[in-house]
């Protein structure tokens, strides 16, 4: 059903775009204000979207909790919320139709990576306000797979259930995937031999090609990246196909634009920038030209898998995770890539930004691997220097590497907290 040609996709997009703009204008006071200076009948194609102002996270915060609502309160049958680090959480609402659509998107994603009714799907994303758990849950159920709703936490029990129930598909954050693999080994279980994990669906935080290598060497046969966020219904917006060369966006449900985050100018396919998404099917809370703050590249050429839905490349980072160190933009994913390709280190790290006088300092704290050769001090010093040099090559700025003992970096069960900006805490930014 979702295997549409480019022509069909564009026809559906244009039809649905006109409908959603009209719908938002007529039903949401927020959008009526936003569109007040626009002739909404002139919005007929993706190109016309440029005429419409962006919707931002600040809009959502300022209109907390339900200012963007486009349906009567009686039509809502579910709420979710994403954690706000400061101030109010972002609350999202769903109608019955919204939940059906979300289920459809998650089912498509799981199907695209090869999940069938024969699979045992363990969902180790948080259930509750976070959209991860329930989104995958409904999607996997729609396929008819056997669902184990473990949610996050209780890592040893997760592994026991994986083994005893023969889990074939694991859905969780990539950092929790690495932690599960590590814990399994401590329990004398080799995931590659003793477990049957065919597929891992990893999302909710940006991750790198090197992490995929680690996950596929130590945990699952195939690791796939999935994208979504609460504002856009949850997980299921885009997912990698078997070629693992970018994430296909379900373009009959979403229009993707890439913009320059500073000027707001729309960029061409192949250019790196902030992703802006328009939801075409959401009823309760449509998001029109929503600035996701995620940095990526859109590729519009045909994928080897034959699917015509455009692809976004791996998320490079979030505009809010981006650190400005001495004026240079640094993304945690760039640092992760260097750490993961260096032998002798574990994949667990923290990034600390600080300021001494007027100078910014970037400290990368990383664990040595348990099997790291520690006989000669020069080997350890060389490892530290090598990492510092490679980080400098990759980031263009000096970093201080602090090697710490194994298991000293706190592990996370949900999204990893990897950045500590002491400048913010000290009120210097």
């Amino acid at each position, binding site marked *: 059903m979702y295997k549409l040609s480019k022509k069909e996709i564009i026809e559906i997009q244009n039809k649905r775009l006109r409908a959603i703009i009209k719908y938002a204008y007529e039903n949401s006071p927020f959008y009526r204000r936003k569109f007040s200076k626009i002739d909404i009948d002139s919005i007929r194609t993706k190109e016309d979207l440029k005429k419409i102002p962006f919707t931002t996270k600040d809009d959502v915060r300022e209109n907390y909790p339900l200012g963007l609502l486009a349906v009567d309160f009686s039509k809502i049958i579910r709420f979710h919320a994403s954690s706000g680090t400061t101030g109010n959480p972002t609350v999202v609402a769903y109608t019955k139709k919204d939940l059906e659509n979300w289920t459809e998107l998650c089912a498509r994603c799981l199907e695209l990576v090869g999940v069938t009714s024969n699979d045992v799907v363990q969902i180790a994303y948080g259930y509750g306000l976070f959209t991860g758990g329930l989104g995958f849950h409904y999607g996997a159920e729609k396929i008819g797979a056997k669902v184990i709703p473990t949610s996050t936490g209780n890592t040893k029990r997760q592994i026991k259930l994986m083994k005893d129930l023969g889990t074939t598909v694991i859905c969780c954050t990539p950092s929790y995937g690495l932690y599960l693999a590590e814990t399994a080994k401590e329990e004398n279980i080799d995931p590659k031999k003793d477990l049957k994990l065919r597929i891992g669906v990893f999302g909710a935080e940006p991750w790198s090609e090197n992490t995929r290598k680690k996950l596929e060497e130590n945990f699952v046969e195939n690791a796939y990246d999935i994208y979504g966020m609460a504002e856009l219904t949850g997980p299921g917006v885009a997912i990698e196909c078997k070629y693992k060369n970018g994430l296909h966006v379900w373009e009959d449900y979403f229009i993707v634009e890439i913009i320059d985050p500073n000027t707001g100018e729309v960029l061409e396919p192949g250019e790196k920038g902030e992703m802006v998404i328009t939801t075409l099917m959401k009823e309760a809370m449509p998001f029109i030209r929503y600035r996701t703050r995620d940095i990526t590249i859109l590729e519009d050429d045909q994928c080897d898998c034959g699917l015509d839905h455009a692809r976004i490349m791996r998320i490079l980072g979030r505009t809010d995770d981006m650190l400005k160190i001495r004026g240079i933009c640094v993304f945690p994913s760039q640092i992760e890539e260097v750490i993961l390709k260096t032998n002798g280190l574990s994949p667990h790290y923290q990034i600390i930004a600080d300021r001494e006088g007027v100078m910014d300092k970037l400290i990368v704290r990383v664990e*040595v*691997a*348990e*099997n*790291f*050769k*520690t*006989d*000669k*001090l020069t080997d*350890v*010093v060389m490892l*530290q220097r090598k990492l510092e040099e490679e980080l400098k090559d990759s980031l263009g700025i000096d970093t201080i590497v*602090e*090697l*710490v*003992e*194994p*298991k*000293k970096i706190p592990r996370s069960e949900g999204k990893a907290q990897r950045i500590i900006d002491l400048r913010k805490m000290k009120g210097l930014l």
Partner: protein
Amino acid sequence: MKQLSVFLENRPGRLANLLKILEENKIKLLAMGIAEAGNYGIVRMIVDKFEKAIEVLRNANMAVNQADVIIIDLDRLTEVAKLFGELGINIDYAYSMNDNKIVLKVDNEENAIKILNNKGIKFIA
């Protein structure tokens, strides 16, 4: 002789923690040397129960390694250093041990042992 080495962060309490683990497992320390580089260092040790020590330290999530070392009497060090020097054997590092002994790590253990045997110098390897 097998030597243990452990990567430790260079801050108060880390060494105490290491020694506590050995003591709790009734492992006796026979020699120890610390090499430090800024925020971290390496602790090298000779213990009475080598295998057991590796096991308990790994269980405590420490990065542990082993290496072969040679132990000689401290009062033969001048002579041995000269011999090794003449044969181009490098002493990478050394640290003293109880009972008036010294632990040596050399870059060519096979040759080192050969010459010590030839010269009739007492050693443990």
